[in-house]
Every structure is written in structure tokens, then in C-alpha cells.
């Protein structure tokens, strides 16, 4: 149930970012000044944690989506659902740690 709620929340959040991303990218058509000024948003210190959350949300949505497809196309997997869930959760954390280091390391002064 929690997995499903998170799937919806991350899905809507990523879609809202996609809308903003399309508008931001369309500033390319107005020339270098307009585009670079728009991208200032990404350079704000407060934006960095949100950008990391975006990547974390996409990766969660992708991982949980793989899980849904495993259960869809291989019904026998329901018997080992718990084990697949924990393997997936472990893989998610293992991937997110280096991503957090690379994306937030500079912000918190680690690199």
C-alpha cells in the first residue's frame, strides 16, 4: 500500500517537474540571455536538495515500476514478493548513496 502511494506521489511530482522543464527548455528559443537567466534557478543552493529529490523520485518510480511488471508478467513471483521487495529496496539505497555524494557533496562541503 505504501509502495503504491509513493508510486503515485512520485509520478505526479515528476510530471509537474516535466511541465516546468519543458517551459524552461523552451527559453532556448528566446536566446542565450533568457535561457541562462532561467537556468539560474538550478544554481540556487536551495534547489540542489530538490534536484536530488527529483532523481530519487524518478529512480523510485522506475524501481517500483519494474517490481509491478515482474508481478504482472511473472505471477509466481508473488510467492517471493517479500524477498524481491527487500532486494529492490537494498539496490535502491546502494544506488542512491553515490548519487547523493555526487549531487550534494559540493553543497555540504564533502568534495
Amino acid at each position, binding site marked *: 500500500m505504501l509502495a503504491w502511494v509513493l508510486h503515485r506521489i512520485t509520478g505526479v511530482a515528476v*510530471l509537474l517537474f*516535466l511541465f516546468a522543464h519543458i517551459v524552461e527548455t523552451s527559453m*532556448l528559443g528566446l536566446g*542565450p540571455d533568457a535561457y*541562462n537567466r532561467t537556468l539560474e534557478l538550478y544554481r540556487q543552493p536551495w534547489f540542489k536538495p530538490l534536484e536530488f529529490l527529483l532523481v530519487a523520485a524518478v529512480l523510485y518510480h522506475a524501481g517500483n515500476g519494474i517490481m509491478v*511488471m515482474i*508481478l*504482472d508478467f511473472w*505471477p509466481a513471483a508473488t510467492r517471493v514478493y517479500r524477498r524481491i521487495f527487500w532486494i529492490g529496496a537494498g539496490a535502491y539505497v546502494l544506488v542512491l548513496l553515490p548519487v547523493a555524494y555526487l549531487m550534494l557533496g*559540493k553543497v555540504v562541503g564533502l568534495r
Partner: protein
Amino acid sequence: MSARWHPRAVRPAGGLPLVLWFYMRLSAVAMLGLVVGHLYIMHVVTSTDVIDFQFVAQRFRGPFWRAYDLLILVFALSHGLIGLRGILDDYVHHRGWRVAAEIALWIVGAAFAGLGALVLFTVQFPPGT
């Protein structure tokens, strides 16, 4: 289990719901590589601190990255809009409001698709950038 996990995860019997059910999975598999690659290149390896007009001008010089981004645009936007349509179905119970919400969803979706595609197909960069 998948039925208990999520009512919508049950495969529909047929018709448009079944087509959309397959499309959500097809676009998901396509995006696994496309979007993870995009995030890795544009958000993890390259800091967004160094992305600017110049960077995109280099990137969009040839057709490869334009086509790559167009594929993501089509898959991500359609996948997201169909997903949001499912959420509207669940929470908007009055039939009239649901139809109105869905029409609004497709108008907004078409506008964003048009704007995104317009940029990818037409944006030109001044010489020297």
C-alpha cells in the same frame, strides 16, 4: 498480490484500458534506459551548475540528442498524462466533472507536447555558440 498491491495493476479484460495498460509498461521499459541515461548525464555526472546555452548548443548541434530528447518527451509526457488520467478516474466521482477534467488534461498535455516538440525541431543556435 498485485491485485492487493494496486487495483489498477490488474490487467484489464480488453479494449482501450488494455491498450493503455500495455502502453504504460512499454513506455516504462523504453524510459528505463532513456531517462536513467538522461539523469546520469545531465544531473549526476554533469552538474547543472555548468549547463548553459553554450552547453545545449553543442549538444543540439547534431540530430542525435534532439531525437533522444524527443523520445523522452513523447514517452514521459504520454506516460505521465495517462497515469494522471488514472488518478482522476479514482478521485473524481461525478461523471461530468471527470469528463471535464479529462478534456482539460488532454488540452494541457497537447500544449506541453507542442511546445516541447517545437523547441526540439526548430531551435537554432547562432554561429559561434
